């Protein structure tokens, strides 16, 4: 069960594999003092998929603001980036 007060988001990056995708996404996290708690990355048929669970509890940035920041990056690195508040994934996939 997720702790009540945590503000966490799940970031999913999907695109053609190339150098520096993780670095650039991680950089946004570092710049905003966001801790990456978990990271999972796979490459299937040259398609890069990365899922990141990040913690925003200690920062003033909202999940919506983070989503807007990553939206800008998405064009630059030519990958789809999806941001979901963890609560929605938890609601849909956990009883």
């Amino acid at each position: 069960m997720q702790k009540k007060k945590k503000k966490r988001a799940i970031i999913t990056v999907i695109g053609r594999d190339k150098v520096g995708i993780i670095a650039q996404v991680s950089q946004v996290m570092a710049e905003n003092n966001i801790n990456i708690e978990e990271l999972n990355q796979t490459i299937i048929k040259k398609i890069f998929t990365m899922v990141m669970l990040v913690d925003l509890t200690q920062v003033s940035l909202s999940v919506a603001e983070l989503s807007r920041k990553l939206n800008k990056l998405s064009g630059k690195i030519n990958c789809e980036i999806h941001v979901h508040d963890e609560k929605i994934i938890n609601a849909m996939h956990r009883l």
Partner: protein
Amino acid sequence: MQYSVNEILETIQMVKLDKLDIRTVTLGINLLKASDKKPENLVKNIQKTVYQNAKNLVKQAHEIEEQYGIPIINKRVTITPIAAVISPALSGNKERDYRLCLKIAKTLDQTAQKLNIDFIGGFGCLTENGLSYADQIVIESLPQILNQTQRVCSFVNVGTSRSGINMRSVVKMGNIIHKISLGKNRAIAAAKLVVFCNAVTDNPFMAGGFHGLDQPDSVINIGISGPGVVRRAIEKLPQDAGLDEIAAQIKKTAFKITRAGETIGRELAKSIGVQFGIIDLSLAPTTQKGDSVGEILEKLGLETVGTHGTTAALALLTDSVKKGGLMASSNIGGLSGAFIPVAEDKVLSDAVKKNVLSLDKLEAMTSICSVGLDMVAVPGNTKTTTLAAIIADEAAIGMINHKTTAVRIIPVKNKKAGDYVNFGGLLGGSYLLKTHSAKSDQFIWRKGTLPAPITGFKN
């Protein structure tokens, strides 16, 4: 990882490919406190109350959309049935009272436009036990109001399982719908009016939503949709999967989308500081490809929707959606089930073209779907008594079976059965359905009350 990559990708697929969305967030506003004896004060109070309550709705909805990564398509407002609000300000002079009604509707329209609210519902009345003077004024103003405003939606309740069906009201609605269809905005004007039996007070969907007298001062209700998601879930099963397996699969899917809707609804209610009401889990099709209830029914194994077996397939679908939703949340309400708006669902409209889906079959389908005859286009020369008889049939199904039924029927001027009409945008387009030419006049003109069933007297 706490969540598997597949779970997260499934959510993304639901949103991106299968068009899972929050179809509407609807803010219900109590307008009784805006009521006043002086017409000028009444108009001012209504404008102020709606504006004050709804000013942050669109902004907050956008914020939540980005936070959760699930689109919110429509932002709407429902108000107390307007007849109750305007009643003290009516003068008894019909012409003057019609003008006041129109003025209020235009004020609501402008306020909605200013706040970027898609539709404002509740410009109607409850008439199952009789028509008050205010009800008559509101109903008789509808042809003008619906033709002269863009965002105001109306409803009229004509019956309940407890009270029976007020046939005087039914006759009146047959006339009014015909009159609406003669106005300058014709078809679209008629699409903004729903005639109900057993109307619910917490419906977030339009055109029939209103804020009931049993509701708090303001409340957020959510309408979630996802025909595409359900279709995909069925496609994942083997071709020869049994109906129990299909029912289980639909339930699981309905569960997931309901939980998503509830999470978002509660957060939105909190962020604008109002009570959270209900989630209406209705599979509501849109004109987009793949977002169709008709297509789900065909996926279940019908060559064309409307053929024999359609009612049974729809029963399975509606029931499974409800059960999945009920397990997911204790706040399921509104209509919940599957909508079959013909013009908004391309597969349904195409089935009309193929002469497989008839008005009679649609009527049978409405006895188990969540609403009723919805976005049904008929020839413009359909008799008013025939329109009334269609309403009476539909209301009777609702009254006897203790369910909500509704009629949103659109007579299209200068067109005949089989012709195509394009309503544009979200309303889609449809081939016109054929009505029976044999008259129902004598039955309809009897007026009076169609008595409630014995099961309506449980106490």
